[in-house]
């Protein structure tokens, strides 16, 4: 497992490359503006189009993009170790299995009863 910094970024003043791995505040501010903008857009779009069958998927898609930006930039997945990325993705994988199993049950019960 390696330290999340660029190779060769260590200096005598920064022997572990920690200062070199500090985030660029400009990038953080752009990501913050994007996440905030998407949140406000989600609210505006939801009020504008009302509760249609497309509203929920659209809202969740916007929420997923926001969460992705938070995970990639604020949670440092972009500079994380492979094992950390694997852990993060595995949680989504297990949640996917959870959803498939119980949705397969609850959403097909009426078919079993009617047959």
């Amino acid at each position: 497992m390696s330290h999340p910094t660029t190779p060769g970024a260590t200096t005598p003043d920064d022997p572990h490359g920690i200062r070199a791995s500090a985030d660029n505040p400009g990038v953080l501010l752009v990501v913050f503006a994007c996440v905030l903008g998407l949140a406000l857009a989600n609210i505006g779009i939801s009020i504008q189009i009302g509760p249609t069958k497309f509203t929920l998927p659209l809202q969740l898609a916007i929420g997923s993009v926001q969460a992705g930006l938070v995970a990639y930039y604020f949670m440092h997945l972009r500079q994380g170790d492979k094992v950390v990325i694997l852990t993060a993705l595995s949680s989504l994988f297990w949640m996917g299995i959870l959803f498939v199993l119980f949705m397969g049950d609850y959403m097909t019960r009426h078919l079993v009863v009617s047959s």
Partner: protein
Amino acid sequence: MSASTHSPVLKHHFEDLGQQHACERLGIWMFLATEILFFGGIFGAYTVYRLWYPHEFVFASSHLNRLFATINTVFLITSSLTITLAIRSAKLGDRAALIRYLLITAALATAFMVVKGFEYAEDFHEHLVPGPSFSHEIEKEAVDKGLDPGKVQLFLCFYYIMTGIHGIHIIVGIGCILWLVWEAWRGTIPPENYSTVEVVSLYWHLVDAIWLFLMPLLYLAGAGYGAHH
């Protein structure tokens, strides 16, 4: 042995600081994976009932206060930025900025809970509570629209359980952030120990990310309901 073994923050069972930081990150991410699955179960239950009773859920959601939720969304997203800037300050060894950003994060989190308190108070005042004290006006309105008031109250059960559990996570986060402020003030968070801040920040970002899904599922489900029905 690398030079990093001489660092006072290096624990004896790690080879170097890089390995120690990586293990700390992996540990908190494994905890976050359990948190994601925990909330996944709640989101799953919500999904089933939302698919079964979509009209009741939309109707009930239209009675929630979206202004409070919007203000809280701004607070949480901003707090995610400030705690990330706190990590940056820790890495750069800027202790004053580290404490400042941590205090701003704690203040935003506290503001979130204060707004949540006002929101709950308003909900109770309007009898937007499942059970015997449920609002007769809303019940009559639901019946007039051909909806089942019991299923409207079911949505409110999800609303209180999901926002309540999320609120508990916020309170835990505030405690962790204030502990970081104490440690930073004592001078125990030099740049080599920035991962202490990062571990708390990862938890905090997850709490923020969960809110990004609670917002559409609870508050935006009924957005624009009055104008379109």
